[in-house]
């Protein structure tokens, strides 16, 4: 009986410790960097009740594997202003079309844009920055965002992607390096905030832009790809 008690104890300890651990698996380094960088941007978005509703809104829903990432277009708010948004284009090899318009697929791939600031600065520690007359710190000049470095962190993992066709929906009309990051003339998509979901080697789901555990109840209860595809219907 005592042995049984200890076994139960060890089992619960293992569960607790597995939750305490950070992301694991062979993609750990890349995945953590990728998530940390992607989640630096936060959204006020219209939440859905679950995968079925989002699948109805999305132009295309696929299960696929990320096979590449390249620096993409930049967007400027006005023609004579520097860009404010830079992007990386993530290529996804389609395994299965779950819903939507197959016309967005080119040679069995879809191309998905991820946005970043065009200029960025991260300092490792507080520096003795000079201040202005209001006491506000004067930051050093921002540097062009390193999209190539970000692209290198994109994990080559399987996932489920709820995609919006943004080929004709630029952030602003001023587009620099138009068409960059994907073959000429190929449609461009973006994953919905709730609909950028990666699958770890042990089958766990990870919400990239927004963690699944922070979403509405219809998303929270999903734990496997099977749950997700079943919920789409």
């Amino acid at each position, binding site marked *: *009986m005592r042995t049984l008690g200890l076994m139960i104890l060890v089992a619960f300890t293992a569960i607790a*410790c597995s939750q305490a651990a950070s992301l694991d698996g062979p993609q750990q380094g890349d995945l953590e960097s990728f998530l940390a960088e992607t989640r630096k941007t936060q*959204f006020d978005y219209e939440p859905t009740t679950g995968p079925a509703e989002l699948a109805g809104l999305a132009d295309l829903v696929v299960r696929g594997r990320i096979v590449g990432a390249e620096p993409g277009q930049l967007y400027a708010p006005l023609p004579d202003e520097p860009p404010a948004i830079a992007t990386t284009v993530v290529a996804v090899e389609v395994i299965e079309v779950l819903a939507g318009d197959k016309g967005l697929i080119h040679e069995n791939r879809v191309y998905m*844009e991820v946005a970043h600031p065009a200029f960025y600065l991260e300092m490792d520690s507080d520096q003795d920055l000079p201040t202005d007359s209001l006491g*506000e710190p004067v930051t050093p000049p921002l540097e062009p965002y390193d999209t190539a470095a970000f692209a290198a962190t994109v994990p080559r993992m399987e996932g489920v992607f709820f995609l919006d066709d943004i080929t004709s929906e630029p952030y602003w009309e001023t587009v620099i390096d138009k068409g960059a990051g994907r073959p000429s003339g190929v449609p461009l998509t973006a994953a919905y905030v709730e609909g950028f979901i990666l699958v770890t080697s042990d089958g766990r789901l990870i919400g990239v832009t927004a963690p699944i555990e922070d979403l509405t109840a219809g998303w929270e209860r999903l734990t496997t790809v099977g749950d997700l595809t079943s919920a789409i219907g």
Partner: protein
Amino acid sequence: MRRGAKKASRRMSRVRPRPPTSNPVATVACALTAAPALRPLPSVLTLTQRSILALVVSWIAVAIVALPANADTFGGGPPDEGYEADSYLHTYCYGPGFDAGLQSHANYAMDTSLALDTDMSSYRQSSCDTTTDVRWMDSNLQPAGVRGKYTCVALSSGICLRADVYLDPAEIDIGTNDFEDRRKSACHEAGHSVGLRHGDSVSDCMRNGEIPTTALKWRRFNEHHIDDHINVEY
């Protein structure tokens, strides 16, 4: 000395370690749970009692692990929260081409939702420069469904020195109550810029998506966000 200037000076000089990626509460729970397994339990307990005790301790540990998912944390950065701002004084500007129809909503978020209701102050600069805390922009944000977004563009040890905040009026105006909805999204992004987190269940402007009613509370921060977070930090 200006109100809060001393605090602002102190904040700028200290180093803030980034939050650990592992869960410290869970780590403690692991240690608590594992401890009884490593040493004999008191002999006064029967084997059945020991087993029940072990089970209870395990469940408590699991419950503790689950707590942080629902905790209302602040200033830890994405995915759920904005980074902390550099001081109580929150300067802002209109970015290039910022929609005139959105300017009053940005002003409202900074001067009323933040500066009037909390201990923070705001100051609108005539042009954006290297001291600006928040640059307001408008854009056709992608993908569909995105009404606003916050991105820190200058980060120092977990403190955001400069941020870009975007509003998408076309997206916000879907549905009803457009005026109040614009104020809500402006307030929401201003909230991220001082470190507040998201919430679909919170009863203020940090809720995601369209406002359920035109009640004032959806355009302001609630008492908890003000008294337990903003006014404590700034």
